[in-house]
């Protein structure tokens, strides 16, 4: 039962990792941008949630109604004013610039909120649980997993069923020809970043309810997100969810063996999969 429990808890944890990863995956898929600041943007969203909940007293999940559009707006402005200028044939400039951005966000959060750990209080949601077939499931992890599925389904639907998604795919395929079709790639990239940071906002709030956070934890979230994306295969959103689940299960099983092994077990699972399937489990374009 302990092992089954570990697998179920790990699967649910994978939902959170998939939310960390979905924005990364989307951005890389549309514009080949590797966003080193992604983890810090998740933490920024958590702090925005903190400010909104303490200022208004509303529940953190309700605060999503404010944090999601604010993060989306930040994404659009960031892309149009800064990141678009770094895109080109060379992958290095966006890496350097987003690394700089990561440092700036961390320092700004330190200035604004200090290094003290914070938490979003969700009125008992954090600790609520129910029994299911001998297992005890936390309401928050189950909710997080359901949200992850809904978000990925929504992104998938946007990508394959809407004019915006068509534009994302066209620009990703061939920027010049997409431009000939009247699509301004700078605007399309702005919208992609807005969508990615909207997802990041959801991830940040759920993270903030689940655990305490401080300005320094972005890097760790970035690594989990990266690993989920790579395990699942670049450019495949459902693969990203499975990647998150594999990572989560590896961590809980590692912790089951020895509590100190939790994080290490996740990284080992990642390395094994990378060694066996360098393109991840479900690459969109098989190499």
């Amino acid at each position, binding site marked *: 039962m302990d092992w089954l429990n570990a697998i179920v808890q790990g699967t649910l944890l994978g939902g959170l990792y998939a939310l960390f990863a979905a924005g990364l995956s989307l951005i890389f898929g549309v514009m080949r941008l590797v966003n080193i600041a992604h983890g810090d943007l998740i933490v920024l969203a958590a702090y925005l949630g903190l400010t909104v909940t303490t200022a208004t007293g509303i529940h953190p999940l309700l605060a999503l109604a404010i944090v999601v559009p604010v993060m989306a707006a930040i994404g659009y402005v960031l892309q149009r004013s800064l990141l678009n200028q770094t895109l080109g044939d060379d992958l290095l400039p966006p890496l350097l610039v987003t690394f700089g951005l990561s440092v700036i966000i961390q320092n700004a959060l330190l200035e604004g909120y200090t290094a003290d750990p914070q938490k979003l209080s969700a009125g008992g949601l954090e600790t609520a649980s129910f029994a299911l077939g001998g297992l005890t499931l936390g309401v928050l992890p189950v909710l997080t997993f359901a949200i992850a599925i809904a978000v990925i389904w929504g992104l998938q639907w946007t990508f394959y069923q809407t004019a915006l998604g*068509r534009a994302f795919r066209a620009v990703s395929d061939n920027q010049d020809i997409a431009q*000939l079709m009247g699509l*301004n790639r700078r605007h399309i990239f702005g919208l992609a970043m807005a969508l990615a940071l909207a997802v990041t906002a959801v991830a940040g709030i759920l993270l903030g309810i689940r655990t305490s956070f401080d300005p320094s934890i972005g890097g760790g979230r970035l690594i989990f997100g990266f690993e989920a994306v790579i395990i699942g295969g670049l450019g495949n959103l459902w693969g990203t969810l499975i990647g998150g689940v594999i990572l989560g299960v590896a961590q809980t099983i590692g912790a089951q063996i020895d509590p100190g092994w939790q994080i290490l077990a996740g990284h080992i699972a990642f390395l094994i999969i990378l060694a066996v399937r360098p393109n991840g489990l479900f690459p969109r374009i098989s190499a």
Partner: protein
Amino acid sequence: MPDAILSMTGLDAHYGDFQALYGVDMHVDAGEVLAIIGANGAGKTTLMRSITGLLKNGPGQISHDGADIGGLRADEIALRGIAMVPEGRQLFPSLSVKENLMIGAQVGRKGPWDLDAVYKLFPILDERKDQQSTSLSGGQQQMVAIGRALMSNPDLILFDEISLGLAPVIIKDIYRALPGIIGEGMSAIIVEQDITKALSVSSRVYCLQEGRVSLEGGSDQISREEISRAYFGIE
């Protein structure tokens, strides 16, 4: 020229330090089909890329409907009604045939061309509409590329190497469809290796040689000798 829909004056084009076009003067009249011929590397594709805004050019070098479009982005030029069927088709591989066509309509210009009209022109595309565009034959891909350009309801359409790499029977089909495409008050520029074909569908022709216009004239007035001289630069 009062009714030139597009005119180029002293058009230069560069790739880094390399200059590919030198002071090209050219015009397209409303409703006419213009042919551009020239050897490989003469600068035909470069000219198409300059007109559509994919290559930057200076102010005052290209005007469309009397307005200077030299500084506009490619998407802004597309909105003005200039569309291109690019060399090598260049369909979007992640998009189905139907989606490739629909993305052409994203420009949002009104006119006779919509999905139904394109399917009527090329019925095979209706049968293949849900397939990935890359799974089609070369000729069918060219049909998609033409349909995609038409979906924006342009008033000027550019065809770069319209028959390159296609089987003769397909080329015939495409040329048979051409009058129906260009018929409705549209102007066109056709880049074509096959000089006979180029002359037969056009009213005027320009020959490019190493980035310069080496010959210009009415398609039925120009002689073969003049063309080979302009083509290869043989005196």
